[in-house]
């Protein structure tokens, strides 16, 4: 079993290990989970190095490539009569996403260090969820992809419904049903691809060689894009997100906003744009308009929020809009921006939700007006929060700037299939969201952390504990490193994005 399969297997094995520990030994359970995910983080580092060694020589040759190249591939026939196989591997985008997920789940486990109610079921479900997510990022067979994708949705219901707060059951049900309706559309698209290709296989790399007619692409591309867009919080299908994230327990919010929402952008790129470039050309404009609404509407929604978690959730809707905007803009710069934003926002929102959870655990309120002056008692948490906020509004030196610059520049450069004027107008409108983001971030953080301490109970609160310091520290460090030294990250993904762009420009050759 190669390293990539281990990346999927380790969370599953951790879930089994947790299931074996007696339920009352909840302290041991969290150590088992942390050890498992720590090992996973190490393996991710190893896989990244292996990938880099294998792929570094190929980057020049990818400049004109029409087909993606995969590394560390493992294939086993599964249902041979239907052309279904267990087919996993990595390319640059996958590696970036796996690093993101690995970091978020490790820090998420640390952020869940004090969950003492039904701890065992909590961690089993969390590990199952993350197995699904890793599986999606590493699969290259459409059946396997869909199987992992849906596996990642269902534990959400139980995690939010049992361990959540607020209107948890309503939020859990709304989230689960909307995400599954989205995946229903993806399923229709996948089956249509399978039968129309005439190749009798679900192999993504082989399907790229099939010729799909323009008429076919015209209706299948939007179906797949919208299906993935539901989980990517595409306007107007984003409504599950504010309630879902706010009702979820901390680690679940971190994982969901940080990683699961990126499945939308990943699927749209990997399958939508890769297999159906003509469809992307036809529909890019509409999705650029919708995602611009996402960006601005999400930001304006965040301005209005009094609850810290809803504030973060709307901010996520806005930033995920950047991801899909980058995908819809259909050029190399914007694709790079989309992937960097997937990573950067993932880390940032994971950090945000983690910190909100830590603050809620201390103040027992999430309402911004009720908090004040917390920086005096929790300097570490306040600093981490500020760094996250600054990354959110795109301060240079942090990863948010790199991502948003690429996306907005890419949008401004437009593409041959969209009216340049329209693209530039949309980009300018999207850019205004940076100002709105600055407003809500700075205002909200100022109210919560600065000024006098408004409630004398707060004066006795403690700052971050060691597990909390490790988790927030790790995420802050990532934001800073990618912000200051982005070229390593960009080199990682650039080679994998070239085929997507080349296919768009060269639909005649396909």
């Amino acid at each position, binding site marked *: 079993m190669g390293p990539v399969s281990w990346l999927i297997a380790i969370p599953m094995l951790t879930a089994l290990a947790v299931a074996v520990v007696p339920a009352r030994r909840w302290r041991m359970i969290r150590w088992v989970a942390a050890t498992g995910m720590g090992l996973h983080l190490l393996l991710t580092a190893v896989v990244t190095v292996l990938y880099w060694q294998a792929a570094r020589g190929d980057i020049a040759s990818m400049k004109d490539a029409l087909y993606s190249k995969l590394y560390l591939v493992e294939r086993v026939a599964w*249902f041979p*009569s239907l052309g279904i196989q267990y087919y996993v591997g990595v390319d640059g985008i996958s590696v970036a996403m796996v690093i993101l997920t690995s970091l978020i789940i490790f820090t998420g486990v640390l952020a869940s260090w004090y969950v003492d109610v039904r701890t065992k079921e909590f961690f089993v479900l969390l590990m199952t969820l993350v197995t699904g997510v890793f599986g999606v990022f590493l699969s290259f067979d459409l059946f396997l992809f869909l199987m*992992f994708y849906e596996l990642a949705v269902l534990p959400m219901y*139980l995690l939010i*419904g049992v361990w959540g707060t607020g209107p948890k*059951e309503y939020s859990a*049900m709304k989230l689960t049903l909307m995400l*599954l*309706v989205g995946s229903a559309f993806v399923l229709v698209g996948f*089956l249509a691809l399978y039968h129309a290709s005439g190749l009798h296989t679900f192999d993504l790399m082989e399907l790229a060689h099939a010729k799909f007619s323009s008429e076919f692409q015209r209706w299948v591309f939007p179906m797949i894009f919208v299906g993935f867009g539901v989980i990517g919080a595409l306007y107007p299908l984003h409504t599950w997100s504010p309630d879902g994230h706010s009702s979820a327990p901390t680690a679940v919010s971190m994982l969901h906003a940080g990683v699961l929402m990126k499945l939308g952008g990943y699927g749209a790129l990997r399958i939508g744009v890769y297999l159906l470039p003509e469809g992307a050309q036809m529909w890019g404009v509409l999705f650029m308009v919708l995602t611009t609404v996402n960006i601005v509407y999400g930001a304006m929604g965040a301005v209005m929020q009094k609850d810290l978690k809803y504030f973060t959730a709307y901010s996520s809707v806005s930033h995920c809009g950047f991801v899909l905007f980058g995908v819809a803009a259909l050029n190399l710069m914007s694709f790079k921006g989309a992937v960097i934003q997937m990573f950067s926002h993932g880390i940032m929102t994971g950090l945000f939700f983690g910190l909100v959870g830590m603050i809620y655990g201390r103040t027992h309120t999430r309402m911004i007006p009720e908090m004040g002056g917390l920086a005096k008692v929790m300097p570490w948490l306040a600093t981490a929060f500020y760094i996250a906020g600054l990354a959110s509004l795109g301060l240079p030196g942090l990863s948010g700037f790199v991502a948003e610059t690429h996306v907005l520049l890419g949008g401004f450069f437009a593409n041959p299939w969209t009216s340049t004027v329209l693209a530039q107008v949309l980009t300018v409108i999207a850019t205004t969201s940076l100002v709105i983001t600055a407003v809500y971030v700075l205002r909200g953080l100022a109210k919560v952390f600065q000024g006098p301490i408004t409630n004398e109970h707060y004066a006795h609160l403690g700052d971050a504990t060691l597990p909390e310091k490790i988790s927030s520290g790790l995420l802050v460090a990532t934001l800073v490193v990618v912000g200051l030294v982005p070229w390593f990250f960009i080199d990682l993904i650039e080679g994998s994005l070239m085929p997507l762009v080349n296919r768009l420009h060269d639909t005649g050759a396909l």
Partner: protein
Amino acid sequence: MLVMLPEIVVIAAAFAVLLADLLLSERRRVILAPLAMAGLAAAMVVTVVAVPQSGEMLGGRFGMDPVAWWFKVLFLLAALVSVALSMDLLDGRARVRVRGIGHRGEYYTLLLATVVGMMCLISARDIITLYVALELATIPLFVLAAWRRDDALSGEAGLKYVIIGALASAFILYGLGLMYGLTGQTDLAAIARGLKSTSAFWLAAAMVMAGVGFKLTIVPFHMWAADVYQGAPTPVTAYLSVASKGAGLAFIFQLFFRVMGGYLEDWAILVALFAAATMTLGNVVAIVQQNIKRFMAFSAISQAGYLIMGFLGPSAEGVPAMLFYMLVYVVTNLAVFAGIVWYANETGREEIKDYRGLSRTNPLMALAMMVALFSLAGIPPLSGFVGKFFLFSIASRAGFHWLVAVAAVNSTVSLYYYLRIVRQMYIEPTFDGAASLRVTSAFAATTAALAAGVLLLGVVPFFYEVISADTLTWLAALVR
């Protein structure tokens, strides 16, 4: 002679049970259930080991082929598990005693009789054999549904079942009679050769399909299901939900593929519409159900909607897809019913809200039920997801993309009501003073085996590949 061996073994078992019931004392009658199970297990072994995969008997009226072979395996499996589930209730070992239930000997004899009927149904090659087998399969079910003599609901269930069932049988008989009239033949293959697309033929086909739609609970022939499922004793409901569906599917196989094989394309749009209506209505009405058996009736109705999508095509792949889904459905549905029967035996309760906190009083049974319910909803990596995926693929291949969308959305909606039960078990607090519930070893073994099946049937490719290898070419031979 070998070809009919499974049926002979089951008939022998039925007579053995009947005689044992006659001759043994009341105390010794505990042996009847194991006897019935032994008979069924022997028939299963005989089918797997000794019976050839093709052959004919009775002058061509009884035949065997790979599809028939698989159906027999399914029927025997369903019956075996159903007997295991009925044992405790009929032997009086249930914690909550039910008055008016007993007569074990007749119960098992009737159940074994239905199995014979179903096995003959799929092997019939002649309309009279077909009809007689159908009656043998369904009439004992009418009686079994009314088994609780002191319960008004049970009597109502039996009565409704017999009246509507007899009506459906009458329609089938009339349709078959018309086919005989049109072709002068009773042999199914000869009828297929002699059929021409006249309006009389379509009338005959419609009548037969109406009767079959009743058995398979296709909308708008589904109305009997809710009351009968709710009123019948719970182990009978379990058996009904899988066996009568299997028999209905077998009957449609005979009719659709064997008799009307050449006209499959003409039926496609109708099948698609029926499928869409069935799955949607089943799902929507299931949402408001409070009684778990009634709930399972509507769940079964919607599952039938997914199942008949395999007839769109004609597609050689539809045959293994439907057989595989039937296998998954038998295992999964019986897993859910194992939980329901056990809970009714322990507490006497049947309302969904009574399942509150089951995850704390008996975590393993709750887990098994949750796994089975998620499989019915089509959540990966469980076998229900894989089975549904293959059926959706058939619809997509036939160009019915709208139907795939409807089916996928319905699958999502169904998750809502399956989650209601999971919510009760896991999220709601327990009753005050709820004691831990115990599980007999029979139930524990059965439930564990079924839950393992639910988990493994989809992921381990062996089952689908074997079915596919056996049956993929079956349709081509018929639709020449």
